[in-house]
C-alpha cells in the first residue's frame, strides 16, 4: 500500500522532528539560566572551586567552546547515538538511563493497569446503579482527575502508612513498595479514563447489539463483559498513548516523594545539578517513548478502523 508507506514516512519524519526540537529546546533552555555549569559541577553548598579545577572541568566537558560549537558537537554525537557523559553521575548518559528506565517503566505500566481497573470498576458501577450512582461516579471522577500528585501522595501516606500501618511510606524492594506510588499516579488518571468510559458505556448499553444479545437470552454479566465493555473501551484505549506520556511526567513528583528509583527522579536531580547532557538524554528518551507510543496507537487505529485510513490518504 503506497498510501500507507507515505503515511508512515511522514510520521517517522515527525518523530525525528519532535526529537530534534526536544533536544534543542532543552539544550538552550538550560544554557539560558545564569550561572557557570563548571561551577555547578564542582560547587555544592559551602565549597569553592580552585581555578585549575574549573579549567580542567571546562576542558573536559567542552564548556570552553562557543555555545554554537557545543550545540553542533552535541547534535553530531546524538546522530551517532552517543548521548554523552553525565558529569553528575560520572558515567555515560545511556548507561545511567538504562539503570533507571526499568523502574519507571514498571511504575508507569502498573499505574496504567491500576487506572484501567479503577476506571472500569467505577464506570460500570455508576452506569448500572441509577441516577445517584451516576452522580457519585461523575463527581468522584472529577475530583480524582483534579487532585495533584504530591497532595494525593501525602494523603495516601498518612492513611495507609501512618494510620493503618499496612503499606510502607517510601519505596521498598518487593511488590508492597510499588502500591502507594502506583495508586498516586493511577487515581488521577482513572478520573480521566473513567469519564470517557462512562459516556461510551452508556451509549453501548443502549445499542441494538446489546438488545440483540439480551433477546438471545445472555446473562447481564456476560453482556456487560462481552459486549458493552469491549465497545466502550475503544476510545479509552486510544487515550492510553497520551496516558503513558502523562505517567512518565507524573513520575518526577511521585518518585521523589516515595524516594523511588527512576527516570523522573534522575531528571529532577539532573536539572538541579545543571547536568545538561543527562537532562537532554532523559528528555529525548521520554519524547521517544511518547512519540512511539502515539505512533503505535495511531497505527492500531488505522488497522481497526478504515475511516481513519481514508482521511490520511
Amino acid at each position, binding site marked *: 500500500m503506497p498510501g500507507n508507506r507515505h503515511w508512515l514516512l511522514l510520521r517517522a519524519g515527525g518523530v525525528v522532528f519532535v526529537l530534534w526540537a526536544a533536544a534543542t529546546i532543552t539544550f538552550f533552555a538550560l544554557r539560558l539560566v545564569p550561572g557557570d555549569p563548571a561551577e555547578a559541577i564542582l560547587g555544592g553548598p559551602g565549597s569553592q572551586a580552585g581555578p585549575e579545577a574549573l579549567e580542567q572541568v571546562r576542558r573536559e566537558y567542552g564548556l570552553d567552546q562557543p555555545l554554537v560549537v557545543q550545540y553542533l558537537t552535541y547534535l553530531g554525537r546524538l546522530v551517532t547515538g552517543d548521548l554523552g557523559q553525565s558529569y553528575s553521575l560520572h*558515567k555515560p548518559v545511556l548507561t545511567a538511563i538504562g539503570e533507571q528506565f526499568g523502574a519507571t517503566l514498571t511504575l508507569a505500566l502498573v499505574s496504567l493497569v491500576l487506572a484501567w481497573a479503577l476506571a472500569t470498576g467505577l464506570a460500570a458501577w455508576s452506569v448500572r446503579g441509577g441516577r445517584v450512582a451516576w452522580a457519585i461516579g461523575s463527581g468522584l471522577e472529577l475530583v480524582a482527575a483534579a487532585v495533584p500528585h504530591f497532595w494525593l501522595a501525602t494523603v495516601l501516606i498518612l492513611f495507609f502508612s501512618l494510620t493503618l*500501618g499496612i503499606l510502607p511510606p517510601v519505596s521498598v524492594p518487593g511488590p508492597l513498595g510499588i502500591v502507594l506510588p502506583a495508586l498516586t499516579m493511577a487515581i488521577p488518571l482513572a478520573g480521566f479514563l473513567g469519564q470517557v468510559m462512562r459516556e461510551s458505556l452508556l451509549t453501548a448499553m443502549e445499542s441494538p447489539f446489546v438488545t440483540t444479545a439480551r433477546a438471545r437470552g445472555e446473562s447481564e454479566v456476560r453482556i456487560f463483559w462481552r459486549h458493552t465493555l469491549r465497545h466502550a473501551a475503544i476510545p479509552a484505549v486510544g487515550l492510553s498513548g497520551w496516558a503513558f506520556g502523562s505517567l512518565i511526567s507524573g513520575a518526577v513528583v511521585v518518585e521523589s*516523594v516515595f524516594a523511588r528509583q527512576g527516570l523522573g527522579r534522575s531528571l529532577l536531580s539532573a536539572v538541579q545539578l545543571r547536568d545538561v547532557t543527562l537532562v537532554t538524554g532523559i528528555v529525548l528518551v521520554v519524547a521517544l517513548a511518547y512519540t512511539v507510543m502515539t505512533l503505535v496507537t495511531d497505527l492500531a487505529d488505522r488497522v481497526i478502523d478504515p475511516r481513519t485510513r481514508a482521511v490520511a490518504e
Partner: protein
Amino acid sequence: MPSRRFSRPRAAVVVTAAVALLLAACSPGGGTSGEPSGEPVTGGTLTYASGDAEPSCLDPHVGGNYPQALIATQYLESLVSLDEDGEVIPWLATEWDVSDDGLEWEFTLRDDVTFTDGTPFDAEAVAANIAHVQDPATASSTGYLALAKIKDVVAVDDHLVRLEMSAPDSALLESLSQVWVAMESPKALERSQEENCAAPVGTGPFVVDTWERQDSVTLVRNDDYNSPPADVAEATEGSDLPYLDSIVWRFIPDSASRYAALQSGEVQVIDNAQPDTIRSAESDDAIEELDAPRPGAANRIELNSGKAPFDDERVREAFIRSVNVDDGIQSLFFGTAERSYSPLSSVEPLGLSLPDLFTVDFTVDTDAASDLLDDAGWAERDADGYRVKDGERLSLDFPVSTNQSIPAEQSLFEQIQADAKTAGFEVNLQPLDLSSWYGVLAENDYDLVSAPYTKVGPDVLRILYHSDSITPAPSGYFANLAQVDDAELDDLLTQASATSDADERAALYEQAQQIILEGYYILPLYDQQNHFLRSSTVQGLRAMPTVSTPTFAGAWLAP
C-alpha cells in the same frame, strides 16, 4: 560560648563515664529517654535516610560537599580528629610536630592499619592522598583549599611523613581533620575516577558494597576495623567495633516522606529534620533528636559593602537596626534554632558574640535608623513609602538559594523584607536554584545574601573576610560576599593564620571578629542547622566533633 561541643546546654545529660564521650554528642532534646539502654548489641542493619541530594561521587576528594562528608564519614578516616572540647587528638596519625618557623610538619603514623582492599596505610599513602587532592584532574574544591599551603610531601620512613609548607598554616591540623581530605587506599586511587567515585576504599568501620543510583548505597561492616579516633577508642575499649553488620544509606528528598519513613520504622535515622518535624517528634517517645550545628561560619546575611547603597556604613547600620530577626527565628523555627550574634558557629571555641549590636528594640532603633538614613542622604520617601535619593529608590537585591535555604529560613527572609519596608528599604527577594544563584553572585548583582560555609576552625574568617577573597576565581565566584576590604582586618587574619601561639591566635581572631561585627558587614542569624532524628532503638550514635557528621562506628540497634 558553650565549651562542650554539640550538646545543647539546656539538655545536658549526665551519663556514666564509659559512654559519656559517645553520648555527649547526642543528648536528647529535652527528655531522658536518650540515655543508653543496656549493653551494645552486635549485628543488624540500620537504614539511614538522607534529605540531601545524592552525591555524584562517593569520594569526598572530588568536589567536596556536605552530602559527601555525611556518607564518607562511615568509610573514610583522617589523620587527626577533634575531641569534644575542640582539641586535636590522634587518629591515623599518633603524634605530630611542627618546626619553629611553621614550615615543616612531621606526622608519625599508625603502623597497624590496613585499607579495606589490603593495602597498608603508610607514609606513601599519605603522600598519594595529598597528591590526589591537589591534582587538578581530581577537581577537588573543599579539600584543595584546605591543603593549599602544602608544597611537598616527603615519606621520611614507612610511618613518618613530612609536610613541607609554602607558608605557616595554624589551621593545618583542623583542616586535616576534615573528611574531605581523608585517607584512601593509594591502590584504589589509581583506578579511573568513575570506579573510585562508585566505591572509594578507606580504613573506616564500614565498606562501600553497592550503589543503586537514585536509591541507596549499601555499606557493610569492615571486619578488620581497628582505627577509631583516640576518644572513641578510649570510650569503647575492648569492644569489637563496629556493632552493626550493615547500613543502607537511602536518599529520600521529600521532608514529609522522610519523617513518615522514620515514624513507620522503615528507616532508623534521618537528617535535615525540619523545625516543624523536630517539634512534633518531641512528643513521640520512639524518636530522639541529635542536634549537631556545623562548624565554621554561622548562618548570616552578608551586606554587600562593595557597592551602593551598602558601601555606606550608615546604611548598613540602619538596615541592621531596622529588622527584628529574634521573633521570626523563635516563631518560624519553633525554638529549634538559637539566635547567633557571631560570625562563627557556636561550636567554634574562638567565636566572639556581640548580642548588644544585633538586638533590635524598635522603640529606640527605628528612630536611630531613620536618622542614619537621613544623614546618608536617603531622606525622602516615594509614594510607596520607600526611601529615595537623587530620584533613585533604596532598593536591595536579595538572591536566595532555594537549595540551601530551608522553607523556614525563606519565611524569615520575608519577615525581614517586611520589617525593612517599614524603614523605607525595598528588599527584592529572588528565589533561585543553586547554579543561577552562583551566577548572580558572580555578576555582583546582589546587596544581601546568605551563604553557608562549613570548615573546621576560625580560619574560615580568612576565607570569608580577607580582601583577597573578593578577587573572583575564574568562574566569577568569590567567598568574601560582604566584600569587606579592610587593611587592618587583612593583617589580623594573616597573622592569625601564621601564628602557632594559641593565646595570640585567639586574641587576633577576637579583634578580627570585632571589626566584622562592628562594621555592620553581617547580620548573624543562627548556627548552620544540622538536626538529625533517630529511632530510640538506635544507641551510641554520635556526631563527629570535626564537621558534625554522624558516625555509626559505635552505634547499635537495641532489640
